[in-house]
């Protein structure tokens, strides 16, 4: 009875939801650990290595500590918005992951929760939601430093959202699809899109740094200026959700870069350059995808501990005066090249 295709479909969906949740909730805490260890390594320190073997239980200890903290709700905050904001930061990242293919197929199950035709549009639309969380957190805290953080983040995200979308247009022109699975399959046949569109790739990754509030664009929280920005008034699990959300956003960003520019689950040789027909190749595809995401996460961490932070106006200038025109020119250039190719 369970081989009935309709029922099987439901089982697959459940499995995929569990896998995505599992991936996020396990990778994110360990990204935090990795960040602390890598940062310590870059800075000639040791880092957290005491809780469990090489500090592997540190994330659990951190999570427990956060849960046991008192959940403070000051009198001056706007309570509904204040409580809602952390969830608004965290949820979009999970929703974006639904359209990202994290493998080709394991047996009869395709490795993407929702194979949406306008997948990329959906991802961009949903990803921008997290700015509401941060801006609202800053506003609802009713306090000056968080307010400045919230304002900064709103301005920053709006500026970089534009570049983020525009930088991807050449990709859609070349692949002719907004479906992420289709984009990955295009790359299995034609090679990674990063090689075709280095400029777009650069703008996209840089804008993602801004979207994720990572150094050099971590202005909304700018520890040395705004002390911690939008999340000053938060404690306990609400703060934990912000924290989780930040790293989940980083994970999603890495997954997007992997999917759009780095060939997703594929490698440019057989048997990894075509959708899997046997189970072990399918599993290997998932592994390849995770490995690429981890490499991207490493890049995020590496940059953070290497460069200083931009100033607010410099960041805006970079977004509007450099990346925005660059992305537009890039579109025109790609269009011209494509037109020439088609006519020759």
């Amino acid at each position, binding site marked *: 009875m369970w081989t009935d295709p309709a029922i099987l479909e439901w089982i697959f969906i459940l499995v995929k939801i569990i896998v995505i949740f599992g991936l996020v909730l396990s990778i994110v805490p360990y990204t935090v650990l990795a960040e602390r260890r890598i*940062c310590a390594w*870059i*800075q*000639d*320190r040791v880092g957290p290595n005491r809780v469990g073997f090489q500090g592997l239980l540190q994330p659990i200890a951190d999570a427990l500590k956060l849960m046991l903290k008192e959940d403070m709700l000051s009198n001056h905050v706007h309570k509904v918005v204040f409580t809602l904001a952390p969830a608004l930061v965290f949820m979009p990242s999970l929703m974006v992951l639904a359209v990202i293919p994290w493998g080709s197929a394991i047996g009869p199950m395709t490795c993407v929760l929702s194979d949406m035709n306008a997948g990329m549009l959906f991802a961009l639309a949903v990803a921008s939601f997290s700015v509401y969380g941060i801006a609202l957190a800053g506003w609802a805290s009713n306090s*000056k*430093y968080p307010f*400045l953080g919230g304002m900064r983040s709103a301005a920053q995200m709006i500026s970089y959202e534009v570049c983020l979308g525009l930088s991807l247009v050449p990709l859609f022109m070349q692949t002719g699809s907004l479906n992420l699975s289709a984009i990955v399959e295009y790359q299995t046949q034609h090679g990674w899109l990063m090689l075709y569109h280095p400029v777009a790739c650069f703008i996209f990754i840089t804008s993602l740094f801004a979207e994720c509030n990572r*150094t*050099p664009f*971590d*202005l909304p929280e*700018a*520890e*040395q*200026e705004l*002390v911690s920005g939008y999340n000053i008034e938060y404690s306990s699990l609400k703060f934990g959700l912000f924290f989780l959300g930040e790293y989940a956003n980083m994970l999603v960003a890495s997954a997007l870069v992997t999917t759009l520019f780095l060939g997703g689950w594929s490698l440019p040789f057989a048997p990894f350059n075509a959708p899997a027909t046997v189970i072990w190749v399918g599993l290997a595809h998932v592994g390849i995808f995770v490995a690429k995401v981890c490499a991207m996460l490493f890049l995020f961490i590496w940059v953070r*501990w*290497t*460069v*200083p*932070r*931009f*100033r*607010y*106006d*410099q960041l805006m200038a970079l977004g509007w005066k450099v990346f925005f025109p660059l992305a537009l020119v890039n579109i025109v250039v790609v269009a011209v090249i494509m037109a020439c190719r088609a006519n020759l």
Partner: protein
Amino acid sequence: MAWSPQAEGDRMIINLGPQHPSTHGVLRVILELDGEEITRLWPDIGYLHRGDEKIAENMTYQQFLPYTDRLDYLAPLANNVAYAYAVEKLLGVEVPPRCHVIRVICCELSRIASHLLGLGCYAMDVGAMTVFLYCMREREKIMDLFETLSGARFTSSYIRIGGLANDLPPEFVPGVRAFLAELPAGVAEIDGLLTRNRIFVDRTRDIAVLSREQAINLGMTGPNLRASGVDWDLRRAHPYSAYPDFEFEVPLGSVGDCYDRFLVRLEEVRQSRSIVLQALDRLPAGPWYVDDGKVFLPPKTDVLTRMEPLIHQFMLITEGINAPPGEIYFSAENPKGELGFMIISRGGGVPHRLKIRAPSFVNLQALSVMAVGHLLSDMTAILGSLDFVMGECDR
């Protein structure tokens, strides 16, 4: 007393410090912001006031020396040295050459330590955390060296009036040489991460420009003054200690912005290294204290076996050095600027009045001139580039 400045129009008052991570201790600055632009500001100091000058009036000259450790606590030995020379000037005592050279070594190592920390905090304030850790790593080696001198890493009180606490321990000179051999690599790392880093340059160049005239009028001293292009270094302008014997350059800035203040400090680290190297090469042998029982404690063996040293010991401990009446001012080129001691003596072992001219206090005056018109983010760069210590400012 509650003092709360009012914002004009729809501007916002924001309170920076005294527990803000980039105010380096307990400086409080009240800012009036228009958006993120600073329109007015009121520095509020005194959170670390301990009444050092009053304390000095109630104890002997030697007893006050450990208090000078706590002025600019990032360069305690340099403060000790400046204070010791001030008292020696009052007493009319000249220490032997070996003592001079050892004091120079202590001062310059302190300068390196202080500048490393200053540069590190500065870098951290503009967001480059890693540079801070690199600076701290190098500074840690100096702390270890200071530990061999007197047993204390931070508030070492190694200097005595008329000499030193003890001669250099045998492991000190090789230790300093080893450290100086490693230092250029560490400095090059800081240099490589910041000097031509586009983000860092954008954050600091043309920020808080202080012209020559402004810097002089505000009474700035030290690297902050030299960054504005004023060639004024007390080690050369009013030579003291063994400084005339050493060759070193006084780096000058051209613009007087935050970037110049960074460059000047970085170069001073290199120059200090060269001074210490010269000093180690020319470290004279001989006594390291004034052989005068009325100024410097006689050796313990003599105290236990001979009458005169015993009396000297007793008098120095109970009444202090018997200073002549008079007024003197002595200032030394400390890492933060001109640290001056004005002593008014009416005779006896206790100063009638001791005034400390703290460079951080004077340098902080420039804050309102520098910061107005810049953004909130620049505030951290400005505070970092001023490199002040509240222990010294509030005294």
